[in-house]
């Protein structure tokens, strides 16, 4: 809480400065929006300190500032303020929208990586509230975001649209801060690459299909300490440890996604979203062996690992302002295939007037390897000030 209080004046000062200058240059004001995310939740997760208690939380305040820089480019800044992280730059990027050859667009800055469908969306878009488990497990609660630059294109294919993007990323998000703190973390992290191919196809009147394939190749911290290593840590100076090169292990994340949406009319419709993820990488199991002379040596053995994840949600809109749906969420641990998390759930949301105020309730039944199943419920109230958002597919 103290962090957020310390950083708030700077963030609010910036906004006030912007607001003060806005009056003088009204015709070129950027769009300013603020989205509040308040939650009341309760979880029966075993071992959780506040198990079964009602938890009231102001989860996040998102501030968004965006607009054209000039006739060719626009910029967007999205700041997230919450009690745990303080002020976080969620995204800050520019897009060179026109002027490049072959209809290319250049995007540079810090942004959500277009890996799959949900990762590139801001969480307030999801009626199921929580980020899919597979992205949480690989990249943390914030999903995969990184600093980088990328080119993208949109090509006509009959009545369809083929989207292509290729990005160079600083780290690819696979190396979290915790991993970098590890004694085996590589001193220099190699750059990562991501790419996406998507096909948007109108199937019939008001029925559209969007398919995507994306991949990310990034360096990983591959070291897995076995129980024997934990019990008998190898001594510094061990030639095996000195020669140990964890820096050159890479992981590949591939995501296939689908969205099928039928907008029956202004008041009702159905949609289906599916994302499937595969993560392949090599880990190095470090095993320590005690010798009769008292020396301890470590042996590193490469082990190829593949893990999977799946998220699927089917939802319907009715009476214009009501949405409800069912979802299935699955993730397999990247380092231990037998560690799995599943969740099934249902959600319902009511939007009072377009996107300005929305109440969502999500119920989850959670199953995790080696733990008792538990249920959780979250009521989310989203309220937003600012310009109308376009209704994206």
């Amino acid at each position: 809480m103290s962090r957020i209080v310390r950083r708030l004046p700077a963030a609010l000062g910036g906004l006030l400065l912007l607001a003060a200058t806005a009056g003088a240059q009204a015709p070129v004001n950027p769009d300013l929006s603020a989205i509040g995310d308040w939650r009341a939740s309760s979880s029966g997760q075993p071992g959780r300190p506040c198990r079964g208690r009602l938890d009231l939380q102001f989860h996040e305040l998102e501030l968004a500032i965006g607009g054209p820089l000039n006739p060719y480019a626009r910029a967007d800044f999205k700041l997230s303020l919450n009690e745990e992280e303080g002020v976080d730059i969620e995204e800050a990027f520019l897009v060179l929208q026109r002027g490049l050859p072959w209809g290319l667009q250049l995007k540079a800055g810090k942004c959500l990586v277009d890996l799959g469908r949900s990762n590139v969306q801001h969480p307030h878009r999801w009626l199921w509230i929580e980020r899919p488990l597979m992205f949480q497990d690989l990249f943390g609660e914030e999903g995969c975001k990184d600093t980088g630059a990328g080119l993208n294109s949109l090509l006509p294919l009959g009545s369809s649209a083929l989207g292509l993007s290729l990005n160079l990323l600083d780290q690819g998000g696979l190396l979290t801060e915790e991993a970098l703190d590890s004694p085996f973390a590589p001193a220099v992290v190699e750059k990562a690459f991501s790419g996406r191919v998507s096909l948007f196809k109108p199937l019939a009147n008001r029925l559209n299909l969007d398919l995507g394939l994306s991949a990310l190749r990034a360096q990983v911290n591959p070291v897995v300490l076995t129980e024997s290593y934990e019990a008998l840590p190898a001594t510094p100076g061990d030639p095996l440890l000195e020669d140990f090169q964890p820096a050159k292990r890479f992981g590949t994340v591939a995501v296939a996604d689908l969205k099928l949406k039928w907008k029956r009319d202004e008041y009702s419709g159905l949609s289906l979203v599916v994302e499937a993820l595969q993560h392949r990488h090599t880990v190095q199991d470090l095993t320590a062996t005690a010798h009769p002379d008292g020396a301890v040596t470590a042996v590193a053995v490469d082990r190829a690992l593949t893990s999977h994840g799946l998220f699927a949600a089917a939802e319907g809109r009715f009476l214009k302002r009501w949405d409800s749906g069912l979802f299935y969420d699955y993730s397999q641990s990247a380092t231990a295939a037998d560690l799995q998390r599943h969740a099934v759930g249902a959600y319902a949301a009511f939007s009072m007037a377009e996107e300005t105020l929305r109440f969502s309730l999500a119920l989850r039944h959670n199953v995790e390897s080696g733990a008792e199943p538990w249920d959780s419920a979250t009521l989310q109230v989203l309220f937003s000030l600012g310009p109308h958002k376009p209704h994206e597919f």
Partner: protein
Amino acid sequence: MRRTPITLLAVLWLAAAVSARLAIVASTTDLAAIARAVGGDEVQVGSLARGDGNPHNVEVLPSSMVEVARARIYLKVGLGLDPWAQPIIDGSRNPRLRVVDCSRGVAVMNVPQGKVDASMGDVHPEGNPHYWLDPANGLVVAATIRDALCEADPAHAAGYRSGCAAFETRMKEAMAAWRERARPLQGLPVVSFHDSWPYLARAFGFQVVGFVEPRPGIEPTPSHTAELVELIKNRRVPIIIREPYYSPRVPQRLASLTGARVVALAPSVGGAKAVEDYMALFEHDLDLLLAAKGK
């Protein structure tokens, strides 16, 4: 076999000739219809919003972006009706695209005075954007489109000028006839679902005295509906106008409680089967209003 390359060249030439037509994309079917009338065979016109769909609320689709990527001119309604057009235009990556705001030169109605905020509902700070529903504004829009076409494609400027002049002549003749036919509607009080019809009301002489929505863009509430029942009874409102994309539920309930008739007017070209061009839009709506009034 020798003829194959010649045939191929001919096909390519034909394809090039066809694609040489000036490509235009419009936000709505109405602007597209006027552009077709002005541009004739020299233009190829598409539109993004459906004639029977809500023009305030159009999905930003990648297929729309590639359609705009091929265009030379984009026709916007403006006045805050089609903010969804901007991400489509940006997503098209089209550096040659000229964006034309067709509200330019239109005498805008119902411009709110003082501070405007969201407590007033989905109010358009620059005024009511449904201006194409006054045929006189159709003439202003046609002139704006003519100028844009002449600038983008000077080689066919004479054709665009004559196309616009012919459209103006046809419209003026029709407008005189519509005014005559619309006499029975003079001063007629009507209720409409949304504030879509002030321009049509001005053109045909009827009066919109209430709305099913308590505020623009806000769903009907029981208390407002009860007030509306009183209003319809007190003012003896015979007609409730409904846009085809809004639910008939509340208008029909109002009708059953008051004896008024619900009329689903076409708010745009394509809003009803018979409405295939801009002039047919007014013919159709006038027919329905007169039939509902019983004249």
